[in-house]
């Protein structure tokens, strides 16, 4: 398969930050040799899951061309993002890849009417020449998310609920008719009774509008509900990736196993299992700097080799796992 068959192709990207002064500082590898790709013709929801400090958001910035990778490349529709320099090219890229952020109350300025953002987006991305023509485009986008222009006209952000506002922010992202939405924790600030409306919306966009979605979250339950594939991140590395039902029904990496076990299930009868004590491990910076597997300090099945070298990608049971436990079991 040539690169051009892929909508997005992430090739071994690494992002390194320096903490502290030039002389005494430390290196922090926030994203470490990450690769994955999305198909061009078959839209899907791809989840990047992990705890805070796992590098999810840094990876999102790399994909949005907001941050240059230290090494590796992000290729979108056959074009390396590093070659996008001019304003015209940037606009062309932004048209196709749109972000949705975590907190809708921070996305919109409290002093501006929300409809203005929608009109601006329509005009800036060339979907309409003036406000009158834009209103058709805006109304269309709002209908996709289950709202109408009437409902948001002349409203300020505080006059809408968190759920409504998050849907407006998805509508805004849809106006340029993107191929890919990058949603960073889009439901974590939204109330329980409205959360499923947003989550269901991503499903609908994939099925009816052929929009692919990269869903970044720490919530494995909603990830299981909507996504097709999932990548579990730990300290900058993707430790396990594959079809979501394979990975979460039968996790292979010990970290994925701990993560899945720790998600509280809304079933009181199963609580005995959840209450079983766990080891919380060391602080963040120590794990980032660890040589060998980043999980070795907390892993219940740690071996000598895990503390010495980084485990390679092992293809096993329909997924990729970075763990020595599965060496020698590779499927071809």
């Amino acid at each position: 398969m040539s690169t051009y068959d892929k909508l997005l192709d992430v090739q071994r990207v690494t992002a390194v930050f320096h903490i502290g002064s030039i002389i005494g500082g430390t290196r922090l590898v926030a994203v470490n040799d990450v690769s994955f790709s999305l198909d061009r013709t078959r839209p899907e929801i791809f989840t990047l899951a992990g705890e805070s400090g796992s590098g999810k958001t840094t990876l999102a910035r790399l994909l949005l061309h907001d941050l240059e990778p230290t090494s590796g490349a992000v290729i979108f529709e056959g074009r390396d993002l590093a070659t996008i320099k001019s304003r015209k090219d940037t606009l062309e890229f932004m048209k196709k890849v749109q972000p949705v952020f975590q907190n809708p109350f921070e996305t919109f300025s409290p002093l501006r009417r929300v409809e203005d953002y929608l009109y601006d987006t329509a005009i800036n991305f060339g979907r309409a020449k003036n406000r009158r023509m834009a209103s058709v485009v805006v109304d269309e986008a709002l209908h996709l998310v289950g709202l109408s222009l009437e409902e948001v006209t002349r409203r300020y952000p505080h006059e809408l609920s968190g759920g409504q506002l998050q849907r407006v922010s998805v509508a805004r992202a849809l106006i340029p008719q993107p191929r890919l939405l990058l949603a960073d924790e889009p439901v974590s600030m939204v109330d329980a009774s409205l959360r499923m409306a947003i989550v269901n919306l991503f499903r609908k966009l994939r099925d009816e509008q052929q929009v692919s979605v990269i869903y970044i979250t720490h919530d494995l339950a909603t990830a299981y509900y909507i996504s097709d594939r999932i990548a579990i991140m730990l300290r900058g590395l993707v430790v396990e990736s594959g079809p979501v039902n394979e990975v979460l029904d039968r996790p292979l990496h010990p970290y994925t196993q701990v993560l899945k076990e720790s998600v509280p299930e809304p079933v009181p009868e199963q609580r005995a299992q959840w209450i079983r004590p766990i080891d919380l491990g060391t602080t963040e910076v120590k794990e980032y700097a660890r040589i060998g597997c980043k999980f070795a300090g907390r892993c219940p099945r740690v071996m000598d080799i895990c503390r010495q070298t980084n485990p390679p990608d092992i293809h096993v049971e329909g997924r990729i796992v970075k763990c020595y436990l599965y060496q020698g079991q590779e499927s071809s």
Partner: protein
Amino acid sequence: MALLSVQNLRAYYRTEVYGISRIVRAVDGVSLELQRNEIYGLAGESSCGKTTLIKVISGTIKPPLRVEEGKVHYQFGSFEIDMLHISPEDLRRNVRWKEISYIMQGSMSVLNPVRRVITTFYDIVTTHQGYTDRKAFLGQVRAHISKLGLPPDVLNLYPHQLSGGMRQRVAIALATIFQPSLIIADEPTTALDVVVQRGVLQMLKEIQAESNNTVLLVTHDLAVHANVADRVAIMYAGRIVEEAPTSLIFNAPRHPYTQHLIRSLPMIGDRSSRASLPGAPPNLANPPGGCRFHPRCPHVMDICRVEVPEMMTLPGNQRVACHLLAEGRR
């Protein structure tokens, strides 16, 4: 007798700006009882009045918040207090930290950022107990910390040197140093990762099991309640709509709002479609009449629009406020 009894509590925020007065009915007719030796879960969406209820229960009532009506009565081992009429001095000397302590979401704001953790422990003892023997107290703190499974060197560190989960566990250690009768935990794990959340809640549960006190656990996360709480109350728009032992709330919810919340929870291993309720929670400055859930309720009747449903007690210690029950329809 119950440890805490709240009767028909109404607490409103009254503000007047440029002659425009506004009343936010944040807690509007709440009655509940907390028993000794239980974990009581309180769930609800943002701005449903959870935090206002805690403020009144813990005696931090400051304008514009005012208690309009109701009773908040505590029965501790040796004495009883009326929280709405206690003097601030009495509250500080005899009640706070000793009988009622508080764990909040951002533990960073409990710990003084420019002083070592141990200093915060000293601060608490000087304010609430009067200064006694410093060495003996240090020994008591050390013993308490090691019993909770925290490394003893955390006492000599500054808050920023601790991870989020460790800070929250130190905050829990602080809150439990005098073995209080009631621990109020307000979203104690919301900002934490799932693995750390599990560790922190395990610790809270262990403490409760050991000292047999009462924990009021407030969080919007129902899955946490399913794993930790003994009883759960569901709040909607300033009122409790349903309260029951945890297994009944999850297996046989009776209020349409609770039913919806439970049904819409996503679970690993189940991809069947989850529906979402139409509309949004009401603005408490101008709530709908009758049952506050009626504009969003799939089973709404005429009576729901005009009359506030009474709390009814069903077999199995389940309390529900819904007209459908009086109608005998379910």
